[in-house]
């Protein structure tokens, strides 16, 4: 008796498996929809930063093209850097038409997966991978930083402003030099303090640097330092509570909330990863996958800008921002992105 039940059971199971397999095949046959997916870094899709922004872009793209969340477009979360390569691999094998790796930390994994899966289409945000089947999405952070630099230059009362970077790299240098150029353009007399914390995740270092900068008389600090920037907000809020007027300029997304309740966020340099992701997905869908190319997103595509919260920015500063936005878009002004270009920029200013 027992044996027979066992046989029946296994038969039923086998039939079930076969049938489900059939079902899957049928589905795959008519499934000619365009599918997109992304792999987050360890921040996850709610990191209030570029992972979140990229996911919003995918969601928007999915809604525009009537794709189903979770199957036609989806994300895989990486809980540790060792998840990057398996996640990317899985999505490519699942026949997603384009797979995004969010963040420059995935550079090596993207390279590896691109070699292993020459037919897969990949894209990486924030860095350049020179492979035929990888599209590199980069931003002109220097242009956005230039705009917030203009605001800082116009609104500083002490003529001293600061810049705090996470780890010194060509990427963060773009923020620094764009910002410096903006400040000098609006206010040639302004003194700019620069410091790199050597870490993106040490709030206490941000706090100490902000303490030093504000202590030396700076009244506006622009940060491109990720979690280290939290310490800068803490210090600014402390000073605001004690009646001193100091500002922080946020980065990557609108950091207005971070400055509440004291309202220390002057403005933020917003990087629209969502726009970039939508654009590249659309191009790929239309058959123009920019593989092997570097796609640059700047002011011209509205992919970098100042934050929508503008109540702390003066009218004059906003006018100035609009004026220079146009100049940059028209190509009249080239914003420096490294130290050498900044030196040259300063020379043109003096003329």
């Amino acid at each position, binding site marked *: 008796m027992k044996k027979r039940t066992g046989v029946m059971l296994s038969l039923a199971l086998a039939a079930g498996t076969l049938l489900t397999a059939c079902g899957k095949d049928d589905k795959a046959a008519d499934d000619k929809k365009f599918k997109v997916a992304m792999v987050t870094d*360890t*921040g*996850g899709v*709610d*990191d*209030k930063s570029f992972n979140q922004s990229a996911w919003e872009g995918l969601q928007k793209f999915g809604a525009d093209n009537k794709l189903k969340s979770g199957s036609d477009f989806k994300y895989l979360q990486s809980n540790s850097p060792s998840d990057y390569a398996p996640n990317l691999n899985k999505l490519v094998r699942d026949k997603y038409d384009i797979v995004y790796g969010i963040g420059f930390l995935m550079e090596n994994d993207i390279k590896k997966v691109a070699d292993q899966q020459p037919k897969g289409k990949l894209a990486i945000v924030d860095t350049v991978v020179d492979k035929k089947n990888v599209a590199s999405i980069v931003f002109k952070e220097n242009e956005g930083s230039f705009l917030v630099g203009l605001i800082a230059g116009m609104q500083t009362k002490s003529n001293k402003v600061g810049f705090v970077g996470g780890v*010194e790299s060509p990427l963060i240098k773009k923020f620094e030099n764009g910002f410096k150029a903006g400040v000098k353009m609006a206010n040639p007399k302004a003194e700019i*303090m620069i*410091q*790199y*914390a*050597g870490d993106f*995740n*040490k*709030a*206490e*270092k941000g*706090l*100490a*640097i902000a*303490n*030093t*900068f504000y*202590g*030396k008389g700076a009244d506006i600090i622009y940060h491109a330092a990720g*979690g280290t920037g*939290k*310490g800068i*907000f*803490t210090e600014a*809020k*402390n*000073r605001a*509570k*004690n009646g001193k007027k100091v500002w922080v300029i946020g980065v990557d997304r609108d950091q207005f*909330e*971070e400055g*509440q*309740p004291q309202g220390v966020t002057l403005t933020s340099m917003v990087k629209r990863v969502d726009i970039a992701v939508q654009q590249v997905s659309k191009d790929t869908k239309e058959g123009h996958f920019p593989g092997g190319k570097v796609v640059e997103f700047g002011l011209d595509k509205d992919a970098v800008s100042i934050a929508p919260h503008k109540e702390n920015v003066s009218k004059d500063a906003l006018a100035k921002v609009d004026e220079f936005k146009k100049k940059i878009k028209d190509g009249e002004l080239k914003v420096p992105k490294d130290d050498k270009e900044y030196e040259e920029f300063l020379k043109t200013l003096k003329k």
Partner: protein
Amino acid sequence: MDFLQILALIIPAAIVSAAPIILTSLGGVLSERSGVVNIGLEGLMMFGAFIGALFTYYGQEWGLGAASPWMSFVAAIVAGAIFAIPHAIASISLKADQVVSGVALNFLAAGLSVFLTKKIFDAGQTPDIQERINKGDIPFLSKIPLLGDWLFSSAYVTSFVAVALAVIVWFVIYKTPFGLRIRSVGEHPMAAETMGINVIKTRYISVILGGAFAGLGGAIYVATISGNFSASTISGQGFMALAAMIFGKWHPLGAMGAALFFGLAQSLSITGEQIPYLKEIPNAILLVLPYVLTILALTGFVGRADAPKASGKPYEKGKR
């Protein structure tokens, strides 16, 4: 910028970043003095930071206002104490390897706190807390020339709490019968037992107290420095506290001094870049300065650091 101004920048920054480490290293002192190695300080601190952020957030929701962070400290103390219990059970009652159990605690805290954050807030990090500990001038004391500027101007109350607790822990360990018991079970549990001291109970109390201190350290980090909790909020501070405890030779005041020294070295390396002359030194050298100074201090000035004799060894009755 003259020298005094520089000091006025460096010293307060050092104290701010040292306070959470002082508290956590006190937790380590209590635990190890009783003979239980506590590698789990990082995990305890992380869990305390999570509870701190969580309860400050709910405190605000419940309308506690400025009292929210203080309520969260109490919660973090309790949570840290509870969280240390598995370590106590494993290493005291079950006689497991204390290092392994401590490492397990670190993993557990990292996983659990991030998991709970995800469950509760449906996000990778807690919201920013609005009510924090305010920096302020201490009345009267901040008027003292020089010293007032260095120690009592724009300072966190929590920093003084940390220093006061260090003194209290010192007093308890060295001046009270209870402290003598803690030290004796850490040095020679057999002799202590012969004298009628309950070794197991004393060790349990010490480990749990240690957890409470580490939890408070984490919560204070959130309230004074980071302002929210995410997986990367506590990244290495607990291990720095462990180092401070060893550097301070398992002495509460020594641990405090070591934590302050770490803070000073770090704030010097940060402020250094903005000081004339020091500015000329390459950034990388300033960044490694805290670690180099620590090694120099350890090898040059501290001399031998002797752990409590029975530290790391489970106590078994009647075993020689």
